[in-house]
């Protein structure tokens, strides 16, 4: 299919259609309202269901009901809206429901601002709801990757019967880039024949989709079943990308999402000055590419790591955790909707290496 110039939010919406998803529930919030606006005209063309809910609390719970049919369902929102969905996320994880969510992050805490941010790392990766559970978390760095990961997200959600959240900063939603969609779109999957979806107790015992287990042994059993899925994800689903990683590198940067692209520019420019820096970009934030990060950090040429984020430092806790103190980890970040520039990152690297301009 020919490349199209598309805004990130609209490309995400179209990607859901390409994945065979026809069920969308959402509440307007900047900077991702274009998804709902796009699907409001696009879904009628493909026979989709869109309900504009009364709140994000309702959205999350509509997803619970919709996912229980065994059909593909998704929502998109931004930080404060995602906060309101934490209740449902906990319930859906506990009930083993496949559902896809997109968080186009804006600055917080509270109402914060509407500009790009990566301040919801803790909420997504460590989870904001109660109980022993995890979301699978994907972090695209380009609009094309948002499309590709969106399609993958539905497969992963079904494979593990677990909520999958794609997080992008406001730039991913707002910027326009050339994107390509699959030649052939997936057809919506029929839930008939599913061994867990609620299709009516015809010729079989009733099925129950729930997260309630009053018997502590049953609840522990459910939590262990979840833990087993997360173990499997850690084994099979870790995704990351290396950029200009070589045995010449003095510093290894770690950044995700669009922040990683800005780091790439800094790396290219430092290269012209003879300063060699590599980048590890996690694509899955849960499961985290911890082993891969440790292996790169342990290389003898690496003097230090630099974690760069659009926050005051959240992912750095995982970078430190996985590198186990093998190398010093430094941090550079801006927050509140301010995006670090390549120059700021370059200055930080020079400072780390005691190199004067």
């Amino acid at each position, binding site marked *: 299919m020919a490349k199209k110039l598309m805004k990130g939010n609209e490309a995400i919406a179209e990607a859901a259609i390409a994945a065979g998803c026809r*069920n969308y529930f959402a509440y307007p919030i900047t900077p991702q309202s274009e998804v709902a606006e796009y699907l409001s005209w696009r879904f009628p063309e493909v026979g989709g269901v869109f309900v504009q809910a009364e709140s994000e*609390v309702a*959205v*999350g719970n509509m997803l619970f009901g919709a*996912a*229980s049919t065994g059909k593909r*369902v998704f929502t998109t929102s931004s930080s404060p809206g995602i906060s309101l969905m934490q209740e449902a996320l906990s319930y859906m994880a506990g009930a083993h429901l496949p559902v896809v969510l997109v968080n186009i992050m804006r600055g917080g805490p509270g109402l914060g601002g509407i500009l790009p941010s990566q301040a919801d790392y803790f909420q997504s990766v460590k989870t904001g709801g109660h109980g022993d559970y995890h979301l699978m978390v994907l972090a695209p760095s380009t609009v094309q990757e948002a499309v590709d990961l969106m399609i993958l997200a539905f497969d992963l959600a079904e494979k593990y019967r677990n909520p999958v959240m794609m997080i992008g900063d406001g730039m991913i939603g707002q910027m326009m880039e050339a994107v390509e969609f699959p030649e052939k779109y997936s057809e919506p999957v029929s839930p008939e024949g599913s061994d867990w979806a609620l299709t009516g107790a*015809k010729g079989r015992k009733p099925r129950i989709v729930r997260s309630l287990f009053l018997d502590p042994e049953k609840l522990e059993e459910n939590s262990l079943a979840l833990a087993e899925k997360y173990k499997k994800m850690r084994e099979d689903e870790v995704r990351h990308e290396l950029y200009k990683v070589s045995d010449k590198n003095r510093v290894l940067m770690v950044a995700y999402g669009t922040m990683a692209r800005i780091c790439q520019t800094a790396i290219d420019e430092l290269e012209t000055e003879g300063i060699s820096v590599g980048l590890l970009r996690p694509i899955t934030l849960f499961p985290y590419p911890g082993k891969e990060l440790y292996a790169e950090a342990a290389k003898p040429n690496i003097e230090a790591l630099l974690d760069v984020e659009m926050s005051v430092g959240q992912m750095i806790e995982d970078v430190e955790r996985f590198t186990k103190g093998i190398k010093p980890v430094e941090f550079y970040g801006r927050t509140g909707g301010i995006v670090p520039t390549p120059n700021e990152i370059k200055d930080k690297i020079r400072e780390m290496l005691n190199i004067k301009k």
Partner: protein
Amino acid sequence: MSTEATTIFKRPEALQEVITHYCPGCTHGVIHRLVAESLDELGVRERTVGVAPVGCSVLAYNYFNVDFMEAAHGRAPALATGFKRCRPDMIVFTYQGDGDLASIGMGEIVHAANRGEKFTTIFVNNAIYGMTGGQMAPTTMPGQKTTTTPAGRDVEQFGYPIRMAELLSSLRTPAFIARVAVHTPMHAINAKKVIKKAFRLQKEHKCFSLVEVLSTCPTNWGMNPFDATKWVTSDMQPYYPLGIYKDPEREET
């Protein structure tokens, strides 16, 4: 005349053959049965999905012989909306108490009704939080003693009980809204007709339907079952009048 025995009364197919956990004198069991009979008689059991609330009927999925979802507190109408929009060919009902529907779930029920979602809500109003041990509900009567209003509900502090059937009837969107009771055989027989109609309207893809059922809670009211049924008549019915509040087959104004 045939000498063969004829079954004239049996457990509805839509109920499982189990003993419920409900207290003696509680009318949840009667309401479950009326719902189950309606599903059987309409021939929809095999394509029905129920949504259980948080409250005394949290375990309703163990009693009905249909597929079920267990919702977060108050969110059953949102689950039902999501399910029904994806599967309009199926029959969906929520079964909710007064704390679940009229307090924490007020937003979800009002908006589901206003969108005209084509599912059925059975709203069990017993004027108290049962499962958590008898705290004040939004439907607790003025002066009624609960564990959080030991001196009786003070309307100066907490306002008056919410009349959900009336409140939802004020919405312009067509719907079937009724209030019934089940504390006497006569009331239960009438309640059955109303509940069955609510499900029939859903089966015909007509409208949202909600049946508020006045129920008893002898345990938390501090009464014996007989006195509890009398209290429904003496104290609840005057404030919560029975009747059909909104009916798409009778209107429109």
